[in-house]
């Protein structure tokens, strides 16, 4: 007999405005899309809800629209649909690569873009059964008062492990956020906060409605390091967008996931503009990554390994994109 969920009411609105109204009307409500992240946490007693608002029936929620300006991806597009979309594959191959690397086929058929962007942060002290967490006095992220990863600290270090966010960041994406006060569009990086307990800047009732990718001329790729090649979260994931003209770098963005509580764009990469991709440049990338990632002991792999792996993957992807 499997663990039963707490009793809740499922509502299935047809419009985003109705979904938000349903959220506001009931304290303790949660949005659910594919449910492959949320329902697992609910079954482990980490998350509870009196009302689940099913977003899968929301009109226009699952469409991909491309034009000369770029592409708008509805938050309800499934990961499988994203991975096999011919325009995504031809114009943003890194997005398809990242989508294919998410979980297994059974997850990708229902899991969504919005869900992957809003994925809860993960930690070996958090993603455990109720009895496991209880016997450890819980943790700072959930019901406890100590972060077992950094007991002296005041913050939660659970790591963000979505695979799409770094690619979208490298491509310069913005997110459209819908809420009680209407819609707002923000650079995707503004969606995230470096705090494992509250890593999304969404206000109560707000949800990601879509992601917009500008038309991109840069080459882009995503690669991740994971314990199991077949299916796993990234221990470190790196997306790189690189444009080279006349042998010199004219545009470079590097984004990381799996190492911090948020996905983030590597800072200070503009120092490489005008340079060529050579050993000195790659060494510089390596140093920047090692300095800016903050892996903690939130996975079974050592934090130091994830730091080195992130830097090595960043170097490798830059080199590959440059054809060097």
């Amino acid at each position, binding site marked *: 007999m499997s663990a*039963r969920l707490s009793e*809740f009411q499922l509502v299935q609105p047809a419009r985003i405005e109705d979904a938000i109204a349903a959220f506001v009307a009931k304290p303790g409500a949660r949005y659910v899309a594919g*449910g492959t992240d949320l*329902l697992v946490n609910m*079954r482990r007693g980490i998350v509870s809800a009196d009302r*689940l608002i099913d977003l899968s029936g929301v009109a226009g929620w699952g469409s991909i629209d491309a034009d000369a300006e770029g592409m708008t991806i509805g938050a309800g597009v499934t990961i499988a649909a994203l991975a096999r979309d011919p325009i995504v594959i031809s114009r943003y191959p890194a997005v398809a690569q990242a989508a294919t690397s998410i979980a297994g*086929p059974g997850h990708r058929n229902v899991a969504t873009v919005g869900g992957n962007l809003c994925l809860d942060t993960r930690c070996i002290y958090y993603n455990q059964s109720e009895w496991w967490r209880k016997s450890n006095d819980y943790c700072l992220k959930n019901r406890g008062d100590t972060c077992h990863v950094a007991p002296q600290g005041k913050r939660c270090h659970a790591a963000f492990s979505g695979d799409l966010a770094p690619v979208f960041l490298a491509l310069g994406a913005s997110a459209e956020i819908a809420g009680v006060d209407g819609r707002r569009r923000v650079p995707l990086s503004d969606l995230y906060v470096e705090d494992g307990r509250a890593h999304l800047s969404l206000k109560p009732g707000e949800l990601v409605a879509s992601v917009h990718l500008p038309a991109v001329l840069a080459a882009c790729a995503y690669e991740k390091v994971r314990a199991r090649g077949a299916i796993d979260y990234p221990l470190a994931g790196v997306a790189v967008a690189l444009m080279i003209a006349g042998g010199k770098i004219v545009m470079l963005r590097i984004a990381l996931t799996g190492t911090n509580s948020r996905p983030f764009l590597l800072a200070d990469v503009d120092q490489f503009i005008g340079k060529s991709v050579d050993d000195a440049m790659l060494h510089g990338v390596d140093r920047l990554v090692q300095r800016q990632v903050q892996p903690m002991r939130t996975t079974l792999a050592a934090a130091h390994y994830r730091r080195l792996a992130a830097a090595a993957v960043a170097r490798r992807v830059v080199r590959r994109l440059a054809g060097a």
Partner: protein
Amino acid sequence: MHEPSAQYKKRLLRIKVNGRWREDAVADGCMLVDYLRDTAGLTGVKTGCDGGECGACTVLLDGLPVLACVTLAVRCEGRSVETIEGLAAQGRPSRLQQAFHEKLGAQCGYCTPGMVMASEALLRRNPTPTDDEIRAALAGNLCRCTGYVKIIESVKAVAGLAP
């Protein structure tokens, strides 16, 4: 804290299971795996990790493999679900099932229904998969006995053959 349970009364779920429509009263919080096993009596659907990690509960929802342990039953309203029980015809296993038997793709057997359903979905979409395509399609299904080689040989054995 919780409001009275009366508010969370069951709803009528209309769902096609292995080709037959049925209607059952189902609570909003009921998982598809529990509905299929406990209400529909289809115990070929296995509960493994119970958290979307092992693939033992893989069933086909409108022809696509999904994990029944992280799927709410009431979200399958009006949709078609296929389980391992739906593959055999007149008590005879399908060719794919027969191949798992003959090629020793099943050992303890616990992961087998999920493996077969994930393979079935692959073969319907791609009747002649390569080894890599088989591996990718079964990436979400864990087996602790076979080492996977015999499973991949089982799927290969029916690749290119009519079902």
